[in-house]
């Protein structure tokens, strides 16, 4: 066992840390800062900041240099995630594009698609969203009904996507659309790359439980999508979707660990200044047990991330491990949110401008954590995957 990084990796960390020290404004580093900002303005600032990061050579860390990436190691990608979280840097505005679409295009895109998609994506010139879920296709993703009918050099698309993260800010969408006949529901799908600014497309915001407008609905009414905007073979969209989702595998949760650790530190700090039963909450044995349990779960998550990273660096097949990883971090984050409410007591309810930034930030994380066991495959779906693929239980 050796939990140290190579000299080259540490050199990378030092360079990135130096760049972050100069480019993340001090006020951004305050816990809870972003949750206070106007969503549209904050999106633009994050988008610009991330573009500057890419220009400085600190994006696409483990992408090949031929695609504008840094050509770094998986460890450097993990270090990148860790350092950004540690520096209080803003979260990426192009998650789905960076995590899923880009590697899929690198793997199976046409030369023209590689050229047109990857560079602009890395530079945040084009923001991508994912068009998978529909009102009647959630966990049962293959039940999508949005249809694309061939008309000359175009597919004419009609239907509706929902729960689309980033829908309001996205320029393009990679969408699972039914374009061909098929006997089974997994057949006849295509992965269309749709320009959301084209006619026949309407984006409506959905207000989340937290009050934010981070996702929306996208309606297609005779929207025309060029036939060369299919990623992978037409009619083979299900396979493309599975390949795309497989890029979640091996992605380290070290970024989540670092961010959650910071939140736990804020909860601890809150526990020092909050009274509970006539004494500081930090002295309450039951609160101490809960904090310790969070420490155990977060430390386990850190070690798990390092183990996954080791497997990736050794070129081992990870299979369905990413489902297990997600169950651990999403559950831990919800436990952390619950702990916040117990430490804050009834005051966890207070909201609005008068609440101090730290408590407001924790309140936002508490609410957001409820979404994390739903999006990207609900915990129930993840448990099926873990039970069947990791434990070998029958379907």
């Amino acid at each position: 066992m050796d939990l140290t990084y190579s000299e080259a990796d540490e050199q990378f960390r030092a360079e990135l840390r130096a760049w972050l020290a100069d480019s993340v404004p001090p006020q951004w580093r305050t816990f809870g800062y972003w949750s206070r900002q106007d969503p549209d303005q904050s999106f633009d600032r994050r988008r610009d900041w991330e573009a500057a990061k890419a220009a400085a050579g600190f994006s696409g860390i483990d992408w090949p240099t031929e695609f504008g990436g840094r050509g770094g190691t998986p460890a450097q990608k993990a270090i990148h995630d860790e350092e950004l979280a540690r520096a209080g840097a803003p979260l990426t505005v192009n998650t789905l594009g960076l995590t899923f679409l880009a590697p899929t295009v690198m793997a199976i895109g046409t030369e023209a698609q590689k050229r047109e998609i990857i560079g602009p994506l890395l530079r945040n010139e084009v923001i991508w969203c994912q068009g998978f879920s529909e009102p009647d296709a959630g966990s049962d993703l293959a039940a999508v009904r949005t249809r694309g009918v061939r008309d000359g050099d175009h597919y004419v698309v009609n239907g509706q996507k929902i729960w689309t993260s980033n829908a309001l800010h996205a320029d393009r969408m990679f969408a699972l659309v039914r374009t061909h006949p098929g006997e089974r529901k997994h057949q006849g799908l295509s992965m269309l790359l749709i320009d959301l600014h084209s006619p026949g497309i309407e984006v409506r915001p959905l207000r989340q439980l937290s009050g934010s407008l981070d996702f929306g609905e996208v309606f297609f009414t005779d929207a025309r999508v060029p036939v060369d905007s299919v990623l992978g073979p037409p009619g083979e969209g299900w396979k493309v979707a599975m390949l795309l989702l497989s890029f979640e595998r091996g992605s380290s949760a070290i970024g989540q660990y670092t961010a959650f650790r910071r939140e736990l530190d804020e909860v601890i700090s809150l526990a020092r200044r909050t009274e509970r039963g006539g004494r500081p909450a930090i002295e309450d044995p039951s609160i101490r047990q809960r904090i310790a349990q969070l420490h155990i779960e977060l430390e386990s998550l850190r070690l798990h991330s390092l183990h996954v990273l080791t497997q990736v660096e050794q070129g081992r097949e990870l299979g369905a491990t990413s489902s297990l990883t997600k169950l651990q971090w999403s559950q831990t984050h919800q436990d952390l949110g619950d702990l916040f409410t117990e430490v804050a007591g009834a005051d966890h309810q207070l909201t609005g401008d008068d609440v101090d930034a730290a408590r407001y930030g924790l309140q936002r994380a508490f609410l957001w954590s409820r979404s994390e066991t739903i999006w990207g495959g609900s915990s129930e779906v993840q448990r099926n995957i873990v039970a069947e693929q990791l434990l070998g239980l029958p379907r």
Partner: protein
Amino acid sequence: MEFALDEEQLGLQSAVRDLIAAHSPLDVVRTVVDSPQSDGVPAGLWARIADQGWPAVLIPQEYGGLGLGLLEAAVITRCLGAGVVPGPVAASMIGGEAIRRAGSAEQQATWLPGLAEGRIRLAVALLRPSAAWDRPGDSVKAAGQTAEGKLTGEIGQVEYAHLADRIVVAAEADDATAEVGLWLVDPASTGVTSTRTPTLDATTRTSTLTLTGVEAERLPGGDPATVADLVSRATVLAANDLVGIARAALTRTVDYLRTREQFGKPIGSFQALKHQLADLLVGLTMAEHAGWYAAHALDAQLPDAALAVSVAKAKASDVARLATARMIQYHGGIGYTWEHETHFFFKRARRLEQTYGDAVQHRARIAALTLDRVP
């Protein structure tokens, strides 16, 4: 970055598993469980284990040991837990480590080669069962702090005391300092009473050790820090035994659920069971990581080693409790019979859960380590 067992550690793991499968399958464990008066070690098993040098895994090669680290000891212990294997292996590992760390050159030369050859078996009486984790030796007083002293006190549930050639005892000085130290006790000495105490976990044998003015040899290097470190190491081995138990409980349960049919299909296809077992695998995987890391952290003297020990023991205790409870539940009626092996795993897990500090105690310690040292 390499947080995984290396080739040699994986090789060791396979060797231990193979030997257990060949010489300590569950029907052999059952002979130990069903004969509570027996010495508790299957005939020939100790010789085979000793022959591999596993009780001497931590003993330097100059004394004939394997000269490996706590991580390798944890690999062995985890396999022993998975097989609910009876015998004083962990006790001998920690006893030998006490002599290696705290013994004089003469004591080391006297005991370590015999331990490495399998001729000598050791027991350790470091921590009274209900004592605070950080108060080893709190029930035994040592009069005289020179090479020879007299020990008086009582300590319960000492594993394999009845087989030990020597017992390493932690005792507090019978003076104002009350400083804890380590002593080597010959069980045949005048004033030693060792009474076998049957436990629910019948894969393990324990005794209550009563000492009345017993003449003992001091291990001169047994200062409080060394005693605490030995308790940490013993705790990590207990955690890894628990992780092994939990993994075996899960694997055996899954195997059963794949074949047992009700309502015309394998019951393992029902989501009520699948989802619980998926969650269990998540927790178990975390406990496995924590168990390796704590051993490594002590070997490498990492700054967070103290925390890592408590994380590992708390997590392993909770997961083993859950895994063995589910094992009984999901086996249904057969799982609640003496005839089935679920109770070997369940009872051993519950004993080890309360050994070297339970989850509540270790969480309290994590809180103390992380919250009470304000930067």
